[in-house]
């Protein structure tokens, strides 16, 4: 009898939990306009999946889209073939087919799941994935794990197609900045008394930057800009299982009903820590506990994206709604000033010896007015005088001395030991996170995925990875398939995580034992950074063949290609004196571009210049190219003209091959030298898109053929503008500027 019972127990525990997910194109209206989105089982976000540790998950994905898809179980320890990365762990699920994901649930905690295919995550393919502890679990925490809990899924929505967003980012669009009122033009700089700051910024060849890149129309909690949890009443404590499913937005969480108690991070328990607010990185999860302190009042949980343009709210409780204090707008020029101090002329970040790590000193803090009023005064702080005096304790102190307590990674402590055997051999790896905002290139060690092989790792090896962020943006680095520990000063109790948010100039160290077999993605979870190639693969061998991916080598090439696509850009000024325009096709390193000036009359002339070039160096300021020039102009009165070098110019009739190079000078001026096959030489200085005012751009060009141009354009809409210019060949003109 006892034997029979024993034999039966595992069968009872081995419950298989089955879900059917129907993935379909849909139309959503969040802004008054109907837009394409993807719904699963008819809903956005995707349905919340619940499992208990010990269950077996069996998820049928019915792909009813016209394109492929895959689902990734973010933060879950799954067999490699169930991990859902297209061309790395499986082939995309073909349209009108069903794929079954089946894996044991061997952990608990708050996780989420999303499409890992293309940009589908941006338009609705994300959902909560909640793994409950078994009641008998030794780690079950009374007063925490038994509280009523609600999944809270943060996300954002843009009416622009994500493919177009991606393309526009690569073309250094400033349309998003206009929409966010974050252009940081010269006029705005002068108005704010920061003309010198702006000048210094351009001298260091930086475009105005924001803490986030994209303009979003709406921010959402569980798919809604505003909603209410009216099932709770005064005195209740509620555990909120928060996942940031935003494609590129960090969110601040603040609560109108008092302190927030953080009890878990990335699905792993942490010792409870009480804070006033926390920032949740893209793809991170936090379990937080809030309470309802008064009768007949609903308290606002406010999720504010880091750029603070808008927010989303959920009211907890019933009755009149107590609002949380909104976060004030960023002070961009204070941030720009600090960035100037920290950027060397060669494009490297300079932390002034402060050795920053673990989110302890938020360098964006300078842009937050409420911090400035307190004792931080970062904007006025003399960075150069600090000489590495500032150590972690000081940072801590700086945070503690302000009245607002903000969570940082240094406060996370695992309730159980997470250390590795001290005598085990350790392999060290270093990564420098690199990037170039101007061309939206994001990489590691200045290599994108298409320039990197898989990193081979022996199974069972302990890896210690040190990351240094030498770029201007923060990056949420996510490891698939396993958790790592973050060395944060908590010794044997370092917290387990699977996403590391690393701010500019920070250095952080993570460790994990490569026990999971297979190819595991390690990447920046900002969707558009990932698609720009900020990825690596850890390949733990030897590997069993993967039934879903017969030819791994070929698939990897495909994966590399996916993240280094060509981006098209086009611009034409339909002016009274002719057409002035350009078209470009670019990827991470290559640029194929054509410029044209087409007059309406023969004596105004027609000319085109085509350049095929390759960007060199991390900052991509240097681009050697080969080119072809064609021009025709009906005989000018004075015939041949001499250039500055005493050579007779062939401005009137030219069909020439050339070699040359372009270099970005301080103030973002392009210096271009070009040698034609007939021995003629041309030197040119040019700058377009000088941000004079929010919507006003200036441009100029002058070259050694004694040609010159200057112009002004006004940006009216995303694709339309007005332009007035004067050209030495074609004279004055006004026109309609169309761009794509």
């Amino acid at each position, binding site marked *: 009898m006892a034997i029979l019972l024993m034999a039966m127990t595992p069968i009872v525990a081995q419950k298989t939990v089955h879900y059917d997910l129907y993935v379909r194109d849909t139309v959503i209206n969040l802004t008054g306009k109907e837009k394409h989105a993807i719904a699963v089982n008819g809903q956005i976000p995707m349905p919340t999946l619940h499992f208990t540790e010990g269950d077996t998950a069996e998820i049928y994905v019915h792909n009813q889209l016209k394109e492929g898809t895959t689902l990734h179980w973010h933060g879950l320890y799954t067999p490699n073939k169930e991990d859902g990365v297209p061309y790395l762990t499986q082939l995309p699920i073909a349209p009108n087919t069903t794929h079954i994901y089946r894996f044991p649930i061997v952990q608990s905690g708050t996780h989420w799941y999303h499409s890992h295919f293309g940009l589908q995550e941006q338009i609705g393919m994300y959902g909560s994935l909640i793994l409950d502890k078994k009641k008998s679990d030794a780690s079950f925490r009374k007063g925490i794990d038994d*509280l009523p809990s609600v999944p809270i899924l943060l996300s954002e929505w843009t009416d622009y197609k994500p493919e177009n967003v991606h393309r526009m980012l690569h073309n250094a669009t400033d349309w998003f900045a206009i929409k966010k009122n974050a252009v940081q033009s010269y006029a705005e700089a002068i108005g704010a008394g920061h003309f010198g700051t702006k000048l210094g910024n351009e001298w260091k060849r930086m475009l105005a930057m924001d803490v986030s890149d994209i303009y979003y129309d709406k921010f959402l909690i569980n798919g809604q800009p505003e909603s209410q949890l009216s099932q709770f009443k005064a005195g209740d404590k509620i555990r909120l299982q928060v996942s940031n499913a935003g494609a590129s937005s960090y969110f601040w969480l603040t609560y109108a009903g008092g302190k927030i108690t953080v009890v878990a991070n990335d699905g792993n328990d942490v010792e409870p820590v009480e804070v006033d607010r926390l920032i949740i990185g893209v793809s991170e999860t936090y379990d937080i506990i809030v309470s309802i302190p008064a009768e007949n009042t609903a308290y606002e949980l406010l999720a504010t994206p880091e750029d603070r343009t808008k927010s989303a709210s959920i009211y907890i409780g019933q009755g*009149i709604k107590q*609002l949380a204090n909104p976060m004030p707008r960023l002070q961009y020029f204070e941030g720009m000033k600090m960035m100037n101090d920290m950027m060397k002329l060669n494009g490297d970040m300079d932390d002034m010896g402060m050795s920053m790590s673990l989110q302890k000193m938020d360098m964006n803090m300078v842009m937050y007015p409420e911090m400035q009023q307190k004792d931080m005064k970062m904007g006025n702080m003399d960075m150069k005088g600090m000489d590495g005096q500032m150590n972690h304790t000081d940072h801590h102190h700086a945070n503690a001395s302000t009245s607002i307590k903000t969570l940082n990674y240094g406060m996370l402590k695992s309730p159980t030991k997470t250390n590795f055997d001290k005598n085990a051999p350790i392999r060290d790896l270093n990564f420098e996170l690199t990037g170039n905002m101007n061309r939206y290139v994001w990489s590691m060690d200045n290599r994108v995925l298409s320039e990197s092989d898989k990193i081979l790792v022996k199974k069972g090896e302990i890896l210690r990875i040190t990351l240094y962020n030498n770029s201007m943006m923060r990056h949420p680095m996510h490891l698939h398939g396993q958790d790592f520990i973050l060395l944060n000063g908590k010794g044997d109790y370092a917290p387990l995580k699977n996403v590391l948010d690393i701010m500019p100039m920070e250095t952080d160290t993570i460790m994990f034992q490569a026990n999971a077999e297979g190819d595991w993605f390690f990447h920046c979870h900002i969707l558009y950074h990932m698609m720009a190639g900020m990825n690596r693969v850890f390949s733990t061998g030897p590997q069993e063949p993967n039934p879903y991916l017969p030819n791994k080598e070929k698939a990897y090439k495909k994966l590399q290609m996916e993240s280094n696509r060509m981006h098209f850009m086009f611009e034409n000024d339909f002016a009274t004196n002719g057409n002035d325009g350009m078209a470009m096709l670019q990827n991470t390193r290559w640029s194929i571009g054509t410029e044209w000036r087409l007059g309406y009359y023969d004596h105004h002339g027609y000319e085109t210049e085509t350049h095929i070039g390759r960007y060199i160096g991390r900052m991509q300021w240097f681009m050697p190219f080969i080119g072809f020039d064609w021009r025709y102009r009906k005989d000018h009165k004075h015939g041949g003209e001499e250039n500055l070098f005493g050579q007779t110019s062939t401005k009137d009739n030219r069909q020439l091959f050339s070699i040359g190079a372009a270099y970005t000078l301080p103030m973002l001026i392009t210096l271009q030298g070009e040698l034609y096959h007939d021995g003629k030489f041309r030197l040119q200085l040019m700058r377009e898109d000088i941000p004079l005012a929010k919507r006003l751009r200036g441009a100029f060009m002058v070259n050694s053929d004694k040609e010159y141009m200057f112009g002004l354009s006004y940006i009216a809409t995303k694709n339309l503008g007005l332009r007035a210019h004067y050209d030495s060949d074609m004279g004055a003109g006004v026109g309609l500027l169309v761009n794509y």
Partner: protein
Amino acid sequence: MALISFTACNAQIKNATTEAVIIAGNCGMCESTIEKAGNAKNAALVDWDKDTKQATLKYDVTKTKRDEILKRIALAGYDNQSFLAPDEAYAKLPACCQYDRLKKTPAKMEDTITSEPHEHNMMEHGHATEMKAEKMVEKPSSASQKSDPLASVFEQYFALKDALVGSDAKMAASHSKALNTAINAVKMSELSQETHMVWMKVMKDMAANSALIGDANDVEKQRQYFIPLSQNMYELIKVNKMKAPVYYQFCPMANDGKGANWLSKENEVKNPYYGDMMLNCGKTVETIQQQ
């Protein structure tokens, strides 16, 4: 001129609906802050009255919602029927605008995780420690400090009564509309059981009569509806006494010689049924007071 600009703005709000809401506030400066915060070009127009604490929201239903407007007003520092302002926003108001805020009733918390600082938290919200758990204990009846769910109903009733004493039909209508809104805003779950029973009985008639007074522009008509309204109010205040004494008064001449009652906060008689004509006609027949 003000009228013209009002009309001009008005004309641009299409698909308009108009709603009356209660917004806290003190003075003329409050008025401009509240209206500026709530107004939205071609979408919403707010007109707040500092005497009645009532605002008329006129808005384009296709562009915005009532609570969007009220949220903006709360973020500017003004508590209203849907939202309470963040403490920080309230603190930033000029001293003359810092109206007396509603006090919250703290919840009883059990400590489960750590030693919770909630008490501290409540202090921050201005919850006095002597606040009692039983909600039906009356707070002082001065216009503002009300923890009584019916406080605003009584306040608007007294304001209406005063307007009738002054024979001001317009003011009476305005207060009566505010009374109507206050009646509809009462959360029955907050009422004691005894009060709740009476409330269920009188609420419908009170709402109807206050609406009729609000729509009437003739003070004599308003006085007609004020008779049953006062009768209901008397029944209500008997079970839900205010801390300060309230006087039940009677004028034998009113209602065509049949006599009629009203409630007043002053013992001195000021007759709402005749106004100036027979201001002091009548007597106090009962003093309603907490024991």
